């Protein structure tokens, strides 16, 4: 959309008819204070947003003065707009009737619309509807930028969120997510009702429902805590920066603050490394077994003594029974009537190893192949292997001596724990080392604490050299330290609440899963399937909506920063951060200027202005992307904090942007010292623009008499 023409009739200082024929690109309107510059902006604002109230305050005094009592004239602001090749004229006006000297009544306020199609055919339409159609309200709001005093268009809670909703695709998902929630709730209810018919799990089900409600409530509570904590953190950080601005030696303070932060971080790291969970380690690290070795020994001895007794008894039993007498006897003789070892000792693997090496590793002597010792070992291995084969041809019909075999298991337990003894012996050393480690850390912490105290004293000194009065100084100092403490506490709270929320969420998830499990076994499976599908659908809608919203914010932020960089070329820019916040179920979008990841609470005016202008440009660019149409941007004295050089630079830069821009400024004007006449400075010649006007009061005029005031529009 392009504004082709703005016509102002009898509106305050604009006597009779005044026309601004505007260009598509950059239009600059120059004007000294009080000569009609802001009145121009206000007349446009009145056309866009104005109300039908106190209209007599808008009447040109000069015109009223010239009018006979009883006669009337129209006060009018009209705009000719071109959109998609079609022309429209929107006019807001009212009739002023002179009642007596300097007084008038107003009537027939109207907003007219005229639509002209491409073939030049004109038709009367509803003016307000026409305006809203060609220049939607939300965009209009972000098209007008009035000076530096009224930057708060972004500060209203929901303004930016509404705008984002308007542009981002997120809005398309609104209706679905509402419908989705409705259907899902119905399905949940159906499943619950069906589950409740099953009396088996009634009590548990009720309890779970209660738990879930409780946890949801807790979660909401902690969300509130977290939000207000974050709010507080921002406030405290702002306070700190404000206090720091009173301090003359800000650089030194920053260095000190960094050092203090470093030390505090080190302390907290070291504190974290001190492990004093001694009682827990008794169990988890098995420290409780520190004195256990003797008991293990006692056990091992008992088991091996029993094993020996058992074999003795078995051997005697076997002998008595006369089973395999010869073999046993021979074996017994070989062993000098000693009790034979169990077949599996030494183990198969060890026997094979010894045979392979031709060494008896028991008596550490050579056992060459063919030697008696070698043959003995071979025979022993064979016996073991034979004992592993079940001999079904010789079933033992007799009752065995031992019905059960505990010995083997106890033996295994004894052997497997033999290896652990080594670890048990180390426990004392480990404990000693941990004590030493913890003591060392404590010493380190103590040293760091001393250092910290020193740095803090130093900081107090610097704060003491502040530029504000001595009586306020102690307050600032006191508050500063209190804020520092508060900030630390709130940061800790933030961490705590976040982790509490996380644990509540996982608890809630577990409970819900448990409840779902009961549903699965109790409720009608068709209902469950339906519910699951509806749950998924709802999740998809919600997620998509969120993503689209986030995507848009991200885009807005990137674009804004690109503009900010352009506008602030060669100087410090910082970074614009645009973030979403959920406050008590209401989504708001906030804007903050950051430097090195820290909010900048007191940016200078020109930086702040350029930040807001950047966002406006970004919004306008995004509007183009979604609506495929550029909208004009109208600025009233946006650069008054810039100075001529920066203003020229700024104008040259925005000249390159694609929107139509109407910019009102008092820069580039100067007054001749001798004649007191206003003139335009030479610098203005170098300013790139498509169109320029100079609004100035017609001379001569009486500064005490409004009826002599008339603003001339001079085309440059």
């Amino acid at each position, binding site marked *: 959309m392009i504004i082709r023409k703005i016509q102002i009739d009898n509106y305050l200082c604009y006597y009779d008819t005044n026309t601004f024929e505007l260009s598509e690109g950059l239009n600059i309107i120059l004007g000294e204070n009080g000569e009609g510059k802001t009145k121009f902006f206000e007349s446009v604002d009145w056309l866009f947003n104005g109300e039908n109230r106190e209209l007599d305050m808008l009447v040109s005094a000069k015109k009223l003065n010239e009018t006979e009592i009883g006669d009337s004239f129209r006060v009018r602001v009209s705009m000719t707009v071109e959109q998609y090749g079609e022309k429209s004229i929107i006019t807001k006006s009212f009739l002023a009737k002179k009642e007596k000297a300097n007084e008038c009544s107003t009537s027939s306020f109207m907003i007219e619309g005229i639509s002209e199609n491409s073939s030049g055919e004109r038709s009367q339409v509803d003016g307000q509807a026409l305006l809203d159609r060609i220049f939607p309200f939300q965009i209009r709001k972000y098209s007008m930028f009035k000076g530096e005093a009224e930057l708060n268009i972004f500060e209203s809670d929901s303004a930016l969120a509404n705008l984002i909703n308007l542009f981002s695709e997120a809005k398309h998902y609104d209706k679905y997510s509402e419908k989705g929630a409705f259907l899902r709730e119905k399905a949940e209810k159906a499943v619950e009702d069906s589950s409740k018919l099953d009396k088996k799990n009634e009590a548990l089900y009720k309890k779970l429902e209660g738990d879930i409600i409780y946890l949801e409530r807790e979660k909401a509570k902690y969300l509130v805590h977290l939000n207000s904590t974050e709010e507080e953190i921002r406030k405290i950080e702002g306070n700190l920066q404000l206090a720091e601005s009173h301090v003359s030696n800000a650089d030194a303070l920053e260095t000190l603050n960094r050092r203090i932060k470093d030390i505090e971080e080190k302390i907290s790291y070291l504190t974290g490394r001190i492990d004093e969970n001694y009682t827990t380690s008794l169990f988890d690290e098995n*420290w409780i077994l520190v004195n256990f070795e003797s008991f293990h020994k006692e056990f091992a001895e008992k088991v091996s003594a029993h094993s020996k007794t058992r074999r003795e008894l078995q051997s005697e039993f076997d002998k008595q029974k006369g089973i395999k007498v010869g073999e046993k006897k021979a074996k017994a003789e070989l062993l000098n009537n000693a009790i034979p070892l169990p077949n599996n000792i030494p183990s198969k693997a060890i026997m094979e190893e010894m045979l392979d090496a031709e060494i008896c590793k028991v008596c550490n002597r050579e056992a060459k192949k063919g030697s008696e010792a070698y043959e003995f070992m071979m025979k022993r291995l064979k016996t073991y292997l034979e004992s592993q084969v079940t001999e079904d041809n010789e079933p033992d019909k007799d009752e065995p001596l031992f019905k059960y075999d505990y010995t083997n298991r*106890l033996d295994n337990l004894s052997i497997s724990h033999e290896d652990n003894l080594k670890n048990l012996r180390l426990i004392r050393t480990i404990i000693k080392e941990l004590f030493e480690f913890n003591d060392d850390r404590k010493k380190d912490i103590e040293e760091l604490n001393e250092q910290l105290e020193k740095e803090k004293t130093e900081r107090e000194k610097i704060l003491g050299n502040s530029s504000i009065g001595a009586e306020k100084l102690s307050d600032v100092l006191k508050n500063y330290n209190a804020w520092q403490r508060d900030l630390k506490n709130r940061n800790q709270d933030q961490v705590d609440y976040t982790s509490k929320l996380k644990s509540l969420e996982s608890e809630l998830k577990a409970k819900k899963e448990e409840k779902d499990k009961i549903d699965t076994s109790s409720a009608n499976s068709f209902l469950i399937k339906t519910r699951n599908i509806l749950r998924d659908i709802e999740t998809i809608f919600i997620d998509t909506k969120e993503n689209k919203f986030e995507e848009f914010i991200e885009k807005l932020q990137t674009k804004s920063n690109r503009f900010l960089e352009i506008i602030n070329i060669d100087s410090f820019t910082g970074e614009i951060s645009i973030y979403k916040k959920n406050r008590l179920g209401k989504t708001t979008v906030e804007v903050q200027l950051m430097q090195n990841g820290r909010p900048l609470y007191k940016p200078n005016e020109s930086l702040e202005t350029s930040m807001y202008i950047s966002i406006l440009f970004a919004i306008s660019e995004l509007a183009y992307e979604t609506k495929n149409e550029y909208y004009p941007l109208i600025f009233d004295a946006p650069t008054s904090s810039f100075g001529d050089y920066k203003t020229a630079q700024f104008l040259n830069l925005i000249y390159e942007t694609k929107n139509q821009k109407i910019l009102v400024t008092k820069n580039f004007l100067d007054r001749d010292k001798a004649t007191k006449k206003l003139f335009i400075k030479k610098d203005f010649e170098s300013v790139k623009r498509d169109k320029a006007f100079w609004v100035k009061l017609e001379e001569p005029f009486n500064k005490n008499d409004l009826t002599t005031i008339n603003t001339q529009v001079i085309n440059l």
Partner: protein
Amino acid sequence: MKNLFEKWKTRIPKYSEVHKDIFTSLSQKFGAEGEKKINLGKHFSTNYELYTYAFFLGLYNNEFSPIPDGEKKTDFSHHIQHWGSKTTVSTRKDFTNLQENMFIALLAKTDIDLVALEKGELDEDDAVKALVKTMESYTNGGLILIKEKLEENPNYFLQPTSFLNMILEKEKV
């Protein structure tokens, strides 16, 4: 059943009601970890931790004190095999090794005729009963030692090292 250990693990050992206060004040019934544990002023995350601790304390100090017949016995309905179960608390380690060592000590300290057991002359259940009794007796001894410490100095256990020290103090028996 041919494994004493497996069978012993399914038992729930008891303690004398006389010591109920110790459990209430030193351990957390429903399990607490980290900060929560400290906030509650509890030293042991669970009742069975305290039970295990008392057992070893009694064992190392040779405090074999069977629960007198007149005293009412109670338990916390938690089978030994579930002590330190991995599924309950993800941040802690399991107690399998401790359970085996408890069993080793019990077998060493309990007079069981293993020959008779293997011959089937001694009932397995009776053997397990004897093991549990030994366990209860040492634990009872340990609890008495803790009680004495508390009576001596109610603030003794405020030190993070206090429980560890009681175990360390006793040099190898």
